[in-house]
């Protein structure tokens, strides 16, 4: 098969694929975060990455999110090889195709919720100011945050902040949503709410979500659970 044909083949199956990915932090004592990972995530999948702390699950997520580059191996996003891309192209890919939700909401503290959601939309620059405002309002409304639009993160509860952060991650209609312990800072109820939203997104809009979590109960709600131990995939099972 030609390269193009391979690429087309991969694209049909996986939105993101890792081939033999290893990530070593250089230093006097090099630390291996992720070792020889092969992984494919298809469109519309809802994947949980679980494992003990320090096992490399977050590192794997950063690699999938193109925030970090592998020391060895290749990552394909929609069949496109990413190792050859420069910073500008990687930034563009993150902007257009990826949405991040972190353990900490990481909202810009000086701006109200609406503006926070508008930041990626305006950065992409495809919508006018008015349209991007409308889009941001729509997203907030979808998560029951109409009231929070003009409030700053400091004036919101932890659960609301995380919902605003999810709304921001969805702002540019990403291909994949990457969540790093999105419930880590929330109580059980709020954490459950976040997963309710994720489920809704997967079921209703066919979104692809990859989330790192250490909460077995929440992990059980996903379609597929990947267990990482010491930077190696220990188990990869379909749960639904």
């Amino acid at each position: 098969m030609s390269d193009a044909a391979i690429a087309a083949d991969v694209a049909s199956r996986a939105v993101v694929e890792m081939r033999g990915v290893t990530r070593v932090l250089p230093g006097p004592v090099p630390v291996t975060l992720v070792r020889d990972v092969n992984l494919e995530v298809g469109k519309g999948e809802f994947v949980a990455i679980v494992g003990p702390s320090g096992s490399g699950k977050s590192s794997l997520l950063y690699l999938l999110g193109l925030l970090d580059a592998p020391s060895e191996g290749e990552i394909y996003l929609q069949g496109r090889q990413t190792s050859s891309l420069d910073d500008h192209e990687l930034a563009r890919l993150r902007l257009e195709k990826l949405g991040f939700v972190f353990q900490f909401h990481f909202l810009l503290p000086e701006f109200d919720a609406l503006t926070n959601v508008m930041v990626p939309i305006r950065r992409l620059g495809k919508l006018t100011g008015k349209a991007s405002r409308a889009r941001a309002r729509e997203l907030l409304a979808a998560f029951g945050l109409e009231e929070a639009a003009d409030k700053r993160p400091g004036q919101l509860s932890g659960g609301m902040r995380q919902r605003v952060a999810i709304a921001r991650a969805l702002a540019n209609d990403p291909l994949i949503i990457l969540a790093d312990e999105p419930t880590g800072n929330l109580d059980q109820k709020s954490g459950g709410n976040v997963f309710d939203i994720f489920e809704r997104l997967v079921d209703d809009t066919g979104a692809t979500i990859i989330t790192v979590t250490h909460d077995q109960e929440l992990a059980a709600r996903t379609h597929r659970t990947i267990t990482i131990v010491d930077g190696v995939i220990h188990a990869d099972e379909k749960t639904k």
Partner: protein
Amino acid sequence: MPLALTIAITHLLTRKRQTAVSMLGVAMGVGFAIAMAAMMQGFQQYFVSKIVDVTPHIVMKDEFRNPPVQPAAMRFSHGALAIRGVRPREELRGIRRARRILSVLSKRQNLAVAPSLQGQVFLRYGSKDVGANLVGIDPDRQRHVSNLESDLIGGSLDHLKTSANGLIIGYGLAGKLGVKMRDTVTAVSPEGVILKMKIVGIFRTGLINLDDGESYALLKKVQILQKRINVVNQLHMRLKNPDAARGVAASIERRYRYRTESWQEANEGVLGVFVIQHAIMYATTGAILIVACFGIFNIISTVIFEKTRDIAILKSMGFEEGDIRTIFLLEGMAVGVAGSLLGWSLGFGLIQLLASIKFDVEGIVKLQGFVLYTSWVHYAIATSAAILSAGFAAYLPARKAARLRPVDIIRGAA
């Protein structure tokens, strides 16, 4: 408003006090620069205009720049020639054929010329003896080459012709002698000639060395006093365009070989001081701006330190190095621009304040306060310097911020 600018301004507005302090730093630099420039240039222009108004633009003197070439050197112009024991011949000083030169020069366009004979005299009045420079002039020609006539605070130039031995003296000189108009003083020349002279005019130019040491009489009287009948030792010239003096002086000197000085050459020492003044001004303003730069560097660095998470999240959302750098550069520039605007009003206020201060100075010129010259050029230079240095101060931390790797920060935060 562009996104980067929104973020930049929001960062600054949430740190009002720090921003205000940095802005004040810039404002001081800009304000003082503007006020100092106004003061310096005001004084310099006043001084130059005084010189240009009061003294002749070009003076031809009865001397040569270089000693005459020896006949032997003329004969062997390419040979190695040394002549020892050459002693200059004592010549009768004075410009030869002055009358002819005068008539040729006075035919020139845009140039007025007047003959004069300069000499030292003692002026004696009562028990006072004061040395002075006595200039013999032709009043009808003199009034076209200097502002003597308009500088008179008493009497008139024509009285030189109408009274027997008229003398016009400087205001300071009159004070030293204790004479008033129409008093009679005794003039004693180095040649021993004594002449009773009547004060028919007192002038005041504002240039101290003229007001305190110069006096004028008819050319003929001075020739008698100095025992130099028919001798003229200086030709004074005035040009329509004083800035051309250097070139005109050089061309006249080439033609007549007599040393011919432009006002710029005659005042080279003072004009040289202006260069040093400028250097001091730039150094002082530069120092203030450098201090202001530290303020800007400080605030931007602090913002960046506090904002590492924001930077990480922005980068994870697809902001590039350039975008991040732009945000913090804009913050620095915003401080620079706002500080400059504040500096304008500070500078303007300082100029008003300086203008209201009155005091007497007697240096090279006589002043009753600061002479101020305001120009938009000062504002423009100070502002561009401030904004440039603000940008530079912000650039270093901004570059560092742009290079942050989001993964390092997110890892650290988690």
